[in-house]
């Protein structure tokens, strides 16, 4: 139920309230940033992941206001609802994709986002230096964005990729874990 409501809001906002840009501009700009970071950090991919995550965090902290202003929604009642909003409204209005929410743990505190499509990686092939395939998480910026955005609405999470088609995996999967609700005034029944 929460899922169809989120899908409706996402569609509506995407159609009527979002300015569109050329997707390739986004892909190429992001690619340039990642490539430059790889150069600046001498192919220290672990550090590159970290930097991308940090950049994303700073974006997320700002983007959340745009998300809230455009979607005009209230607070989510639980983490499952939050997951649906991230996928069907957040990713929908900013990237026009709706990653699949799945693989919930039984305590409802961890889920996966499976990206059937990811506009950031069009045209991308990782460097074949024998390490990038194992160390670089190319789309790490997305993890940071989620972390920054959710922190601003008092939800502390951890997010990282656990597979990526760029590395030759079958799917691209991000794991998102709820750490805690930050404000003690928050509802305690966060199922």
């Amino acid at each position: 139920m929460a899922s169809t409501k989120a899908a409706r809001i996402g569609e509506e906002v995407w159609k009527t309230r979002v300015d569109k840009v050329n997707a390739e501009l986004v892909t190429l700009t992001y690619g340039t940033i990642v490539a430059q970071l790889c150069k600046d950090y001498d192919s220290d991919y672990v550090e590159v992941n970290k930097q991308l995550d940090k950049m994303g965090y700073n974006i997320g902290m700002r983007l959340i206001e745009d998300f809230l202003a455009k979607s005009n929604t209230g607070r989510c009642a639980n983490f499952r609802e939050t997951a649906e909003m991230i996928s069907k409204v957040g990713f929908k209005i900013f990237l026009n994709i709706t990653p699949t929410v799945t693989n919930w743990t039984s305590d409802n505190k961890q889920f996966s986002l499976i990206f059937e499509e990811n506009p950031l990686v069009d045209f991308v092939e990782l460097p074949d230096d024998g390490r990038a395939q194992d160390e670089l998480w190319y789309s790490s910026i997305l993890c940071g964005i989620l972390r920054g955005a959710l922190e601003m609405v008092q939800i502390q999470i951890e997010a990282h990729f656990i597979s990526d088609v760029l590395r030759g995996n079958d799917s691209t999967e991000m794991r998102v874990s709820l750490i805690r609700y930050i404000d003690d005034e928050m509802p305690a029944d966060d199922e």
Partner: protein
Amino acid sequence: MLDTDKAQNPRVVFALIIINKAGGLIYQRDFHEGLTKLSVNDYLILAGTFHGIHAITARLMPRPLAPPPPQKPTGIEVLESDAFRLQCFQTLTGTKFLLFTEPHQTNADVVLRRVYELYADYVMKNPFYQSEMPIRCEAFDRHLGSYVKSRQ
């Protein structure tokens, strides 16, 4: 019809202030001569005091709560006097937008939503704006000014 409506119900927005999540005043602007000006210090006190009262009133609710509310209580939303009406809109991130209008003004919430959108665009998306700091964004001033003017 709109014109007569306007003539009978002049939509006067006197002023807007924005309070960050720590209760600090980060923006203050007068749009209309209708309200006497307060000193900067008074505005800072107003912002801090309102912030505190808002936090306390958000914890006020009727005791026997069955069933529990789907959303937690919002805290104080409107203050009215003979001279003005003050509407508060708090975003989920904790920032407060306070709009001072003429007492019979309707749709203050619509104005506030639009102001929030302008804030998201011209303040938060400005890469050189630092979160929680006083807002000095010329584009925000400009768009806010023309939006409010278009409504009076």
